[in-house]
């Protein structure tokens, strides 16, 4: 039942748009093409940033830094139930979407998409955002310098997200 719901969500959207294209009054296919072109632009624009950050994350992993740091943190991490493989993702997530995409896809390649760490990373990646980046952009756009309790609240929500994701994945999948 639950499996069907999650498998159906995406086809539902595709079929709904298909129905709009079939019965809609205006020419929605032009809208589709415009949007798809934007999507292409976004992913092409992503590549230069991603090249730099994928190289950096790959170097970090190859140097043994990730492993050493993970080993150092593993007693703590195991105690609170967070897989240590998540470390690069957790460190980059608040700052940059492309850096965390790099960390996320490297992680999936290393431990597999269906392992506990891969599943936890997926839930964290989907339900958190680039906290520092978003808040900086929002407030600097209106020249606000005192962000007051914005950062503490946003980081508290993100911490909650990390712990809850790992807890839920253990409960849900294993």
């Amino acid at each position: 039942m639950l499996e069907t719901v999650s498998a159906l969500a995406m086809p539902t959207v595709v079929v709904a748009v298909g129905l709009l294209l079939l019965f809609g009054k205006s020419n929605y296919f032009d809208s589709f093409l415009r949007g798809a072109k934007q999507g292409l632009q976004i992913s092409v624009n992503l590549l230069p940033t991603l090249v730099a950050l994928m190289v950096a994350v790959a170097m970090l992993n190859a140097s043994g830094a990730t492993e050493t740091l993970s080993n150092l943190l593993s007693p703590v991490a195991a105690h609170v139930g967070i897989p240590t493989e998540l470390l690069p993702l957790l460190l980059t997530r608040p700052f940059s979407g492309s850096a965390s995409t790099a960390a996320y896809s490297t992680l999936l390649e290393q431990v597999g998409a269906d392992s506990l760490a891969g599943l936890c990373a997926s839930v964290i990646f989907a339900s958190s955002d680039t906290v520092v980046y978003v808040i900086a952009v929002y407030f600097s756009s209106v020249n606000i310098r005192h962000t007051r309790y914005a950062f503490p609240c946003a980081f508290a929500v993100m911490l909650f997200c990390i712990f809850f994701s790992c807890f839920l994945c253990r409960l849900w999948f294993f």
Partner: protein
Amino acid sequence: MLGKIFGILCLVALVFGGICGNMTDVANAIPDGAARAVEVTISLCGMMCLWCGLMEVLADAGVIRRLSRLLSPFLRRFFPNAYRTGEGAEEISAAISANLLGIGNAATPLALRAMEQMQKHNPDPTRADGEQITLAVLNTASVTLIPANLLALRRAAGSSDPFAIMIPVWLTSCLCAAMALLLTSIPRFFSKKGRRTQKRK
């Protein structure tokens, strides 16, 4: 900021690679990483095109508008000033609806316009207003109904069931959004109380 992240990661890699004697691995990682970036972009690209196209159709068909009308009675409670004055109310609900549909590139300009509108009623323009903070924090915990990019990456990484994470993602992101609303409401609740007692004096 990205430059700094890149620099820090490279320096740490160099130092650890030197200490652990993994310099050849580090060297090999450079061309591998660059090639991986292209692989990741290619596995994302098709899905990005498809999804942005579909969402553009939904946006043109007025789905964002309808969704934001559905959300406004609920959002009214958390943005009382914006809704009372009408400044930014539309943009707030449209930005949250766009986030919900996963149209990030539509959500950001809407949210920035909302911030600008709310700034008109901000008593001190250099200090963030309570409602502005709520909007910013809520958008960092944005609920997305279908995380299309993530599903494409999981599929490309060889997951047997990339969609299995959907319900945990919905649960987690809804709870995070609730946490964001709750946490940012606490200081506002107390400051309102404080202002009232001050007035009485």
